[in-house]
């Protein structure tokens, strides 16, 4: 029991940044845009979030700064991809490389600076429950927000008119354009939302997960988030499942290694990737569902013709 509660708590903190980044990317991709720059945007969010807290002392300002940094970086992507119809794949890759370098530059003087981490918010009454209260209702506010975002994104896509238009744009930009919907503007908003969510994911890493700034601290989480979106076939609830599965196994395999199980550590490190992909592929193998949920226009540049 002593080990259980801290383990669950670390699993939740490991899954939260993935959830933020993946939900943001899901919205971007649903509008028909593939932004491979998630990793770069996470790093920008991490360093800017940390710097903002360091200089202002306000945690909420740090989160906002992280979101703004991610959004700002995605704005560059949007300008190139929507404005100049650059290749989405190449631009996204460049954005990641750019984000790595830029964050290292900004964070030069922040390496080794200490921070206490985001304050925990105990939910009244519920947090007093034995065990459950400890595990589920004493987190920093971003954990709650990330979990709240799942039904919100799901509802937005399934039931709201704006979500319907967003899906329509991702399905056939030409038809949407013919009907008079502003394809470029809708995609711009989707890209900015994705950027801001990645930025928050980054801020979570540097403010809560391991409260400090280290160069390249996202350690490939951006790529995991991208993979989660695809393997979850663009469905928010499956993104939630995938993020917690991945977070869970990556923590559990550490414990297993610590306990000295006789499996090579390299195999154990592979586990989270293998299991997550395997599970998501297995539950999402219905071809019709894939066709239904994947945005048909993804990655294609939009050339408006009258």
């Amino acid at each position: 029991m002593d080990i259980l509660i801290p383990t669950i708590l670390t699993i939740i903190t490991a899954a939260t940044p993935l959830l933020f980044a993946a939900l943001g990317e899901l919205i971007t991709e649903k509008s028909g845009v593939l932004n491979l720059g998630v990793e770069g945007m996470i790093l920008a969010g991490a360093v800017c979030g940390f710097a903002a807290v360091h200089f202002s002392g306000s945690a909420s300002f740090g989160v906002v700064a992280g979101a703004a940094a991610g959004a700002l970086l995605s704005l560059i992507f949007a300008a190139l991809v929507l404005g100049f119809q650059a290749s989405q794949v190449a631009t996204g890759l460049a954005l990641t490389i750019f984000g790595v370098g830029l964050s290292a530059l900004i964070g030069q003087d922040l390496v080794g600076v200490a921070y206490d981490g985001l304050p925990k918010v105990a939910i009244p009454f519920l947090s007093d429950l034995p065990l459950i209260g400890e595990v589920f209702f004493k987190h920093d506010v971003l954990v709650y927000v990330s979990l709240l975002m799942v039904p919100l994104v799901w509802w937005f896509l399934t039931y709201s008119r704006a979500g319907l238009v967003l899906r329509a744009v991702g399905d056939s930009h030409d038809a949407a354009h013919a009907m008079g919907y502003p394809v470029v503007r809708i995609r711009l908003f989707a890209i900015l939302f994705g950027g801001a969510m990645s930025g928050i994911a980054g801020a979570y890493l540097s403010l809560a997960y391991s409260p400090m700034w280290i160069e390249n601290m996202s350690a490939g989480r951006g790529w995991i988030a991208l993979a989660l979106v695809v393997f979850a076939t663009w469905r928010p609830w499956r993104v939630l499942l995938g993020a917690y599965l991945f977070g869970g196994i990556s923590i559990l395999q550490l414990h297993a290694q610590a306990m000295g199980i006789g499996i090579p550590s390299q195999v154990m490190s592979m586990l989270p990737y293998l299991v997550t992909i395997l599970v998501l592929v297995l539950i999402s193998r219905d071809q019709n569902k894939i066709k239904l949920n994947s945005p048909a226009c993804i990655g294609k540049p939009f050339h408006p013709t009258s």
Partner: protein
Amino acid sequence: MTRTFPGVIANQDVDLTIHAGEIHALLGENGAGKSTLVKMIYGILAPDSGQIDWQGNTVSIPNPAFARELGVAMVFQHFSLFDSLSVLENIALGMDSKVNRAELKSRILEISSRYGLPLDPDRHVYTLSVGERQRIEIIRCLLQEPKLLIMDEPTSVLTPQEVSRLFETLRRLSEEGLAILYISHKLDEIKALCHRATILRNGKRVDVADVNDESTSSLAAMMMGETLETTTPRIGNQAGELRLSVKNLSLEAADEFGIPLKNINLDVHCGEIVGIAGVAGNGQDELLMALSGESVSTQSDSLFIDGKACGQLGPNKRRALGVAAIPEQRLGHGAVPEMSLVDNTFLTAFQRLGLVGGGFIKNSVTRQFTEKVIENFNVKSNGSKAFASSLSGGNLQKFIVGREILQNPGLLIVSQPTWGVDAGAAQTIHKALRDLADRGAAVLIISQDLDELMAGTDRIGAICAGELSDIYDTAALSIEEVGLLMAGSALDEKSLATGGLNNV
């Protein structure tokens, strides 16, 4: 109404009146100005001059939204639908005003049952047939309670069963007082469905006809034009040896919208030009592909080239025998849009011109040949490296025709050689085709342009519903007789007393 585009008068003083409850046909060949006229009515194009009266009041229609507000709805030839969304969602996206889903769903079901347009609002579009997709568009229009419904060639993508179903719906709508403007060049459909027809030719209104008083061939004559000004038929050509001989060639349709070829018999000799007339969509594409080798017959002896049975040979093997083919569709069939002119040249010419040496492309030879095509056929482009897609339609046509003719084929099959090409270029192409025949090649022209065929061929036949008529000496036939052939009727031999019947 008048509307001009740079270099073309698309509509010149065109009049059109439609009454409530009437199904009115707008009839004309491709390029006759039907689309332009309709786009002005629907507010997509602004007229240069002219006026629109709507229920007694003069109106100007600046955009489609205003047209819809007036009560004008339009079903386009190409649907604007989203595959991964449901029918309901698709319709909701097309509505100008916000409606809640439950209400919209019940309205869709009501219209769908009232007009015989069965459609499940919760189905996803990618699971639907083309006919069902069209129903979405029609219901989307009907939800706006229009007074005038414009349908742009609605049957071009439908199966015969779907067509008759659509006609029932349209008749019921017209009985309820809806005016329908039905755009088509399919004469039998117009005869079956429409009350009156406005016929356009070269941007001008030729006539307004009561459909009941006309036959399909008289409508065809009005559409194509009875007066041919500069008809100088090719005469005195001595046909040489038999080059192409098609015997009882039948081919299944490739998909449900294709036309099966039925028992085609055709001979083309060296030095002669044979023309195949026909209204679009009667098997022209299929015939071209069957001759070029893109569709292969199961019977080797259904097709002979220079006496060699080659019904089962593919395009490259036929090319090696001297066959060149120019399909109707320029981009994507005749040329690869994203490739340069040099590369496009290489693709069809590498065999005959020996453009491959030791496994490598002979770049300079290919480029020189491409430049020769560009120069001889006066193709306007940014040099031989230009993408095929960067050329205008007419220039690309000149390039493709030139590319094939300069390879000196023994047999050239060309569909719509002068489609969308200006008069000067058309003359160049016609002359090149004649010269090719004079050099001893066999030429087969498949075309919808009767003027072109009457003036430029030695013998002529027509294709209708996948069946090829007998082939006659062009000089012996009148336009009306060709019209009859196009409608699928056989000619009475007595009426051909003067002509040498050149039966195959």
